[in-house]
């Protein structure tokens, strides 16, 4: 499959549906694995890296999940193509910096991707829409078990899966959920939430920034430790915490609507006005305003039919995505800001003006929480 074909469609995690998706954008589980007694990528010679890459790549391509897939060596990708994959969360920024001796394999719906010779020989991830860490873990766990039959993984009965960095040893698992929390940010509660989640050994980070500086009010919650707990326990702990954060976010939105209705209406109206009428807009400003529009959709101020196009803009307005559509290799940031504004204006012209009278609070998704 060609790069242009895989990238023509949005990933399943963006276009699909999932539990609690009003607040949880995506769930992701990543496993780190290495081959026994082979030097880790950061320490291996080029010839050793190539040898590992070839055997791993072949094993991954043979997976039934990868029947329809995109597979490429990193040196064959342009910097722009690599950046597109980073913006889609399909490879890490570290992996994008790699060249000869590293590769990536992903399935057509972009729900599974395997980075070969990132920091570890294999970094495989599954990603889906909404809060469904259990399903996502099952998906990647099956891939891992299938690979066991053709690859001998480095494993010790005491320390579990052995990884290049001791911070990943044990399960080698990093499970995370991306949360959209405009209510907690607008009501100045976000730092309190971040601190209390950090206290119980989970990490919360803003997407491109810290705390209230987070762009687009997007936050990622993930496990910090990998040794001493089984995969299911780690995911269980994450689920319980995320469900509480969801509840806090819903309460924050309800309070804003009740007590600060005018501020809320004003913010939604201004976001819509700015996005519809700007001719130059930075990535940061765009994400922050789009976040408010997304909130508006959750609150029924905009019709639900516009959810997907707006979600898509979060990715489509990123620098590499803008450039790939324009077919321009080098673009100044001024040109990008202008192009971004044009793209947003075009899409938002389809969205009707905010109908504040329709504002209602999404019924808390308590039934989905269990």
């Amino acid at each position, binding site marked *: 499959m060609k790069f242009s074909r895989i990238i023509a469609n949005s990933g399943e995690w963006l276009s699909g549906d999932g539990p609690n998706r009003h607040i949880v954008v995506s769930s992701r589980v990543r496993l780190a694995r*290495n*081959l*026994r*007694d*082979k*030097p*880790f990528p*950061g*320490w291996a010679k080029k010839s050793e890296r190539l040898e590992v890459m070839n055997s791993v790549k072949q094993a991954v391509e043979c997976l039934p999940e990868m029947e329809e897939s995109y597979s490429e060596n990193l040196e064959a990708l342009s910097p722009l193509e690599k950046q597109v994959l980073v913006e889609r*969360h399909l490879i*890490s*920024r*570290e992996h994008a910096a790699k060249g000869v001796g590293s590769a990536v394999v992903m399935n057509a719906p972009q729900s599974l991707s395997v980075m070969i010779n990132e*920091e570890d020989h294999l970094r495989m991830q599954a990603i889906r829409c909404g809060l469904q860490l259990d399903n996502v873990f099952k998906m990647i*766990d099956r891939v*891992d*078990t299938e690979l*066991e039959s053709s690859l*001998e*993984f*480095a*494993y*010790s*009965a*005491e*320390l*579990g*899966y*052995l990884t*290049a*960095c*001791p*911070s990943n*040893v*044990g*399960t080698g*698992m*990093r499970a*995370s959920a991306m949360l959209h929390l405009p209510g907690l940010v607008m009501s100045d509660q976000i730092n309190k939430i971040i*601190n209390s989640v*950090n*206290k119980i*050994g989970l*990490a919360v*980070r*803003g*997407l*491109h*920034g*810290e705390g209230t500086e987070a762009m687009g009010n997007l936050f*990622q919650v993930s496990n*910090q*430790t*990998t*040794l*001493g*707990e*089984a*995969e299911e*326990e780690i995911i269980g702990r994450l689920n319980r915490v995320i469900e509480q954060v969801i509840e806090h976010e819903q309460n924050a939105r309800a309070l804003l609507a009740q007590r600060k209705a005018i501020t809320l209406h004003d913010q939604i109206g201004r976001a819509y006005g700015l996005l519809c009428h700007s001719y130059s807009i930075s990535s940061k400003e765009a994400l922050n305003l789009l976040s408010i529009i997304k909130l508006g959709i959750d609150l029924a101020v905009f019709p639900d039919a516009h959810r997907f196009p707006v979600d898509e803009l979060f990715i489509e307005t990123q620098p590499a995505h803008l450039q790939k559509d324009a077919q321009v290799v080098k673009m100044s940031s001024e040109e990008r800001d202008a192009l971004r504004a044009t793209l947003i204006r075009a899409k938002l012209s389809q969205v009707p003006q905010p109908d504040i009278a329709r504002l209602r609070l999404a019924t808390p998704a308590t039934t989905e929480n269990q």
Partner: protein
Amino acid sequence: MQCDVCQSKEATVFLTQIVDGKMQKVNLCENCSKEKGVNDPTGFALTDLLLGLGASQEIEKSPSSVKCPICGFTQADFKKTGRLGCSNCYTVFEDGIGPMLKNMHKGTQHTGKTPAAFHKIREHSEKIKTLQENLTKAIEAEEFELAANLRDEIRQAETELAS
């Protein structure tokens, strides 16, 4: 304040995380924060970063001449990179890595997934452990015939494990 990584530029990014009740702080300059992917939440873990700094000193408990026979890695390399050379390094530098893992994780014993190839080994070692406990009890109770049988069973399980 100086950057903790390059020790030269002025730190502008200050990170604090509380992990299991312990406060961890890192100060970084603009360059190093970008390089370490601090702005990229998917790639960044404070633990990874801390490893590259203070925590890696722990491994010095192993004598400095120790070298991994498989990949040639030394503790000086670990101090530089915060990463190990190969899976065998975990055995070679065991004394230094042990205490570090204790500070970093919830526990020191893996309780998660086991590759199928290890299932048999795990079952056998557990079986041998139970048999040995029974053997001790049998000897204490002076049930020598039972003890002799248990010894045979243990020997058999051990040969099976070795195969």
